[in-house]
């Protein structure tokens, strides 16, 4: 079982290691420890990274996640680079003023490439590794964004693709998968049921499931959300981050990314507080945090925030642990607050995010109001998906256009009405 993998000149990854018991495995398509069922994680040679990687070598790399390639689990030069990553880190002054913060940044993965969510990061890494491991068909269990990304990047790479989604997803997420021509299995059931089915299917057809048997490689892609924020803040760590929690994987990997850059000397060490955001209708991690538990009680999701509606979160216990030890919080908000969060970000910063982002902004607001984020802290909120994919969530809450005749007086009447409505708050009126 001891790994005998030889690292290449450009990659520091050595083996897979159980996060629970420490057992090591060869870096193949496997994700669970045979001894204790703990999650397998990629192990790196940090001494080698410290000697080899500098800020300059990173900055000389491509304008994508692959500038951090030595920290990612791929063994060959043949990576799939579709321009994923290096999304804007926007200083959000208007939102900050509205909330009462002084230094707030939005990491905007709503404009990630190619499919407008952070999932492009994890899929770029997973499919690069899948190809190295010889897979010709790739698959996933998805709440929507992952299906979009897996289908798109598989199309680019010429891999066959079969994705599994719950049958009640938003229309934009289904269409945004079908367009790339994969096989789509829409399962009658919630995401946890889809995930369980995929866990049973994973080893039966010789497919690479990005978030099951390729999960150790896939999840490493999220570390780039940590690296980029450090680099974009001028090689500094923030004081506080707020990110959405679904399985908890993203949260733990941002943490790992920060730790690694400190470990190899790319950034000065500093305490960073980690706060997580869940929707009230699916908040098993927030509940465990608030009740002081070190285990997660699964729930059956009921929320408009479908992209983060995971009732049985794989990395939940690790997310709770990180929030506790960094002096952060895990908070939940209801569906109405999520819609308000989407609108607030759009109206103050010009960023249209989906329900997960609305959850993050609403929790950010709640934490500030509760005094759990200091106005002086440099805070980064991670926006992980695009609002055009979840239009159903905000329909009916955003007003309607004024339909007018192509005549000046029709316009003037409508303008007068719009000013009146601004004063009265918006209500539906036919012009």
């Amino acid at each position, binding site marked *: 079982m001891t790994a005998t993998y030889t690292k290449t000149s450009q990659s520091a990854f050595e083996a897979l290691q159980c996060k629970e018991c420490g057992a090591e495995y060869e870096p193949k398509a496997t994700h669970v420890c045979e001894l204790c069922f703990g999650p397998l994680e990629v192990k790196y040679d940090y001494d080698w990274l410290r000697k080899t990687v500098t800020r300059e070598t990173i900055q000389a790399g491509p304008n994508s996640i692959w500038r951090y390639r030595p920290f990612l689990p791929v063994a060959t030069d043949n990576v799939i680079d579709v321009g994923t990553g290096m999304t804007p880190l926007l200083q959000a002054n208007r939102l900050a003023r509205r909330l009462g913060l002084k230094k707030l940044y939005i990491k905007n993965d709503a404009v990630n490439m190619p499919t407008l969510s952070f999932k492009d990061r994890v899929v770029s890494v997973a499919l690069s590794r899948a190809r190295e491991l010889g897979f010709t068909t790739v698959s996933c269990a998805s709440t929507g964004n992952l299906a979009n990304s897996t289908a798109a990047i598989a199309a680019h790479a010429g891999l066959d693709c079969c994705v599994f989604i719950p049958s009640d997803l938003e229309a934009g997420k289904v269409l945004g998968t079908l367009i790339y021509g994969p096989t789509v299995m829409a399962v009658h059931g919630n995401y946890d049921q889809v995930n*369980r089915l995929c866990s049973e299917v994973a080893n039966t057809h010789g497919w690479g499931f990005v*978030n099951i048997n390729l999960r150790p490689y896939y999840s490493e892609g999220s570390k780039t959300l940590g690296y980029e924020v450090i680099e974009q803040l001028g090689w500094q760590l923030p004081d506080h981050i707020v990110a959405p929690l679904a*399985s908890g994987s993203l949260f733990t990997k941002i943490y790992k990314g920060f730790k690694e850059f400190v470990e190899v000397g790319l950034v000065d060490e500093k305490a960073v507080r980690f706060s997580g955001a869940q929707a009230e209708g699916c908040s098993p991690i927030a509940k465990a945090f608030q009740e002081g538990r070190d285990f997660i009680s699964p729930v059956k999701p009921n929320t408009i925030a479908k992209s983060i509606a995971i009732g049985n979160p*794989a990395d939940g216990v690790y997310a709770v642990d990180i929030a506790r030890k960094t002096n952060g919080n895990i908070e939940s908000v209801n569906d109405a607050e999520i819609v308000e969060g989407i609108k607030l970000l759009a109206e103050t910063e010009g960023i249209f995010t989906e329900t997960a982002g609305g959850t993050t902004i609403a929790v950010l607001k709640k934490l500030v109001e509760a005094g759990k984020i200091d106005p002086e802290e440099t805070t980064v909120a991670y926006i992980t998906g695009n609002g055009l994919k979840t239009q159903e969530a905000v329909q009916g809450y955003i007003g309607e256009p004024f339909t007018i005749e192509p005549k000046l007086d029709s316009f003037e009447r409508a303008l007068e009405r719009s000013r009146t409505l601004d004063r009265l708050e918006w209500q539906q009126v036919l012009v």
Partner: protein
Amino acid sequence: MAVKVLIPTPLQKLTNDQATVECNGETIGALLESLEANCPGIKARLCDEQGKLRRFVNFYVNSEDIRFLDNENTPLKDGDEVSIIPAIAGG
């Protein structure tokens, strides 16, 4: 009384590469003992030193997570299907 148990890949070395095993047991707890009798060594992989189910393994009875039922006391009847599934997946 027979219950069909679906065995995950990491445990199939203990079941002669069989993906399903027929077992007996009035409850999940009793089923574990029956499994151990058929496939020695399997219980130590599913349970920790205190004999409790490990936190990274999930049990389902006819597709329902036993944590929504009665955990290890969940009753079983003839023809039930029990799935043992690694908890780490997805997201």
